[in-house]
């Protein structure tokens, strides 16, 4: 607990179970922690960004190539005829690139936030930076990645002779629910994963399975199996991928209402994730 006393002096109090507030308190605390650590988050992002690209042959161009390399395997399988995703209105190259880029925001955010504390263990033990700031500082890299992937997607649009719609400019906003969902899961994993180390790899495996019931690399309408179709229909993440992709490529989309509903749900999940994070964060340092 931190406050300013009547003499204007900052007072810090540490006592057991001090972060037992509810969801609203967690949101407020989260805002305070991030606001007070904005310089730290910015510096850590800058440090990681510079260090990542310095002394590499491809340098900053690596960031542009990276999203393309992620879909090479799917494109290979498609062009040799092994993968038959079905015919849609969007050229498959574009379909799979946009779909996988949107999908990538989920494991990307989850991995960044869940690994944020482990990666910054040194700083947790030796500085007084709020743990939330360290957990979310890695998200800055993801945001940068989203902006870079827009350039890559633009190139693929041009190559395919397709003009993106104006929705393309709103791409960061359209994938925000995916980022929020990944953040919510990452917040829980960042604390629980430091207690039970196998939780994070287990969740990664689970996420890989969820991808197969999400129309990332195949077209939803081509699925004939009723059970799988039902799974895809009931999978809320399907809408977080399908709707932004359709809006960007076609300028229209079905199920926008469900997309908005699921998006609202991701905000609620972040609040719950924050609540769990604050309830358990003090257990993390003891286990680093």
């Amino acid at each position, binding site marked *: 607990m931190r406050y300013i*006393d009547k*003499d204007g*002096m*900052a*007072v*810090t*109090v*540490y*006592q*057991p*179970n*001090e972060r*037992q507030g509810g969801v609203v308190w967690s949101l407020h605390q989260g805002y305070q922690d991030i606001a007070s650590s904005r*310089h*730290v988050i910015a*510096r*850590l992002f*800058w*440090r990681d960004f*510079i*260090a990542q690209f*310095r*002394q590499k042959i491809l340098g900053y161009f690596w960031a542009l190539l990276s999203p393309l390399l992620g879909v090479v395997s799917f494109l290979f399988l498609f062009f040799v005829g092994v993968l038959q995703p079905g015919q849609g209105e969007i050229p498959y190259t574009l379909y799979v690139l946009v779909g996988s880029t949107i999908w990538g925001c989920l494991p990307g955010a989850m991995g960044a936030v869940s690994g944020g504390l482990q990666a910054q263990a*040194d*700083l*947790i*033990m*030796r*500085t*007084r*930076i709020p743990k939330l700031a360290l957990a979310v500082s890695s998200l800055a890299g993801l945001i940068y990645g989203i902006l870079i992937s827009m350039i890559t997607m633009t190139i693929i649009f041009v190559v395919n002779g397709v003009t993106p719609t104006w929705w393309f400019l709103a791409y960061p906003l359209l994938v925000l629910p995916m980022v929020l969902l990944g953040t919510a899961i990452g917040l829980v994993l960042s*604390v*629980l994963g430091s*207690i*039970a180390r196998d939780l994070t790899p287990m969740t990664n495996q689970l996420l890989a399975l969820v991808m197969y019931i999400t129309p990332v690399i195949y077209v939803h309408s081509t699925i004939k199996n009723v059970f799988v179709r039902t799974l895809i229909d009931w999978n809320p993440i399907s809408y977080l991928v399908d709707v932004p992709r359709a809006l960007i490529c076609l300028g229209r989309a079905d199920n926008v209402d469900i997309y908005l509903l699921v998006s609202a749900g991701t905000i609620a999940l972040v609040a719950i994730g924050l609540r*769990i994070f604050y*309830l*358990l964060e*003090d*257990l993390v*340092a*003891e*286990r680093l």
Partner: protein
Amino acid sequence: MTQSSVVVEGVSKKFGLSLKSALKYGLVDSCSRLIGRDRDHALRPGEFWALNDVSFSLQPGDALGIMGVNGSGKTTLLRILNGTYSPDKGRVTLRGRIGALIAAGAGFSPMLSGRENVFISGTLLGMSPREIRKRFDEIVAFAELGDFIDMPVRNYSSGMGVRLGFAIAVIGTPEILLVDEVLAVGDLNFQKKCYERIHKLKREGTTILLVSHSPGAIWSVCDLGLFLDHGQALVQGAVEDVVRAYSDQNSRNAKSSADQPALAANGSGRRDEAAAEEILDSNGSVTLKSDYGHTRGGNGDAVCSSVRVLSASTGAPVESIQFGEPLLIEYRYQVNARLVFPIFRSSIDAVHYKFVISLDSYEQGVAWDAIEPGEYVMRVLVKDPALRPGMYRLNTSIASRQVGVHTFYWLSAASFVVNHPRDRFLYSNDQAVFFAPCSFTLRELK
């Protein structure tokens, strides 16, 4: 009245003894919290108190030295004060901006230049970008890096990196400064500068908490001390009292280790080879090894069965004596065959040196023509051993003036501790063995 800048009230912290118990209790605690149940703070099987009911308060400008052997809870306390760990019991209140000098250079990125790292590290320590810009030149000057500030940190020598880290941390002006074992960095001039900076902060009202194993570092910075042992605050008060208590505790620990040489390293209680050298025969008598290279040996004509250190005033067995107190040693002998011209000899080993004292009956002017078989007790009184505080081991032997080998020898037969005196502060060198009273005169040469 000035408000305390640091108030620690009954703070306790527990940890699991093993990874398995840490995982189990971590999951149990997590579930308890998630369903809204208060955490049970009682100690559970497989847990221990790393810090147990520690309380103290400090005023602005106070400097507290926290001492204790490894595992005593020093670092846990510092981490609670730094907000890294949350206490399981008690409360910590800190008034003012807190600076932590826990690891100079924490968060340095080797790929980036010193200049870039100053901004990163400064921000991590709670300085605003404006404040870092304002103090940048001062930091570079303090670290004595000059033009090297634009070189990648990975090309720095270890000393340069640590100097820069230290400079960033101490150039800020925190109201409370937590320091963990990082004063001994750089060359002598830089260390002097570090001490001067710490003292300047102290004069300006910064409350300093310094954790160190070095009595010299604690004594030169702190006026108050806290001695932790197994998580408990054993001694609190004047720094000299705490340094004495720490040193005596170290000596007691060394004695405990010295007294258990026979226990195998795995702690199973199995006696090791050295202890197994003595074999009891069917009559229960000790059969000794008849050559050198063992803990105990001899030809069996005489055996020393026990060596004890006694209080010179009461005659009772003691583990330690006070500095300046006479040393009284009692030996019990079983003489099995007539000893002609026997010589009883003992030597004393210090922790770092062997045979610092030799107590030889012939040298001391005591001689026997012969000793007949039987049981004997001998007491040796060393009126002024002049031994400095520390742990010492006794070796003893029986020889004969006419025979060039030992009749009996026993290495590490007993050990004792010389405690620190109350009226004198012996801090200068923990490897020194003797205290020689002397006078100092100083006059200016014209």
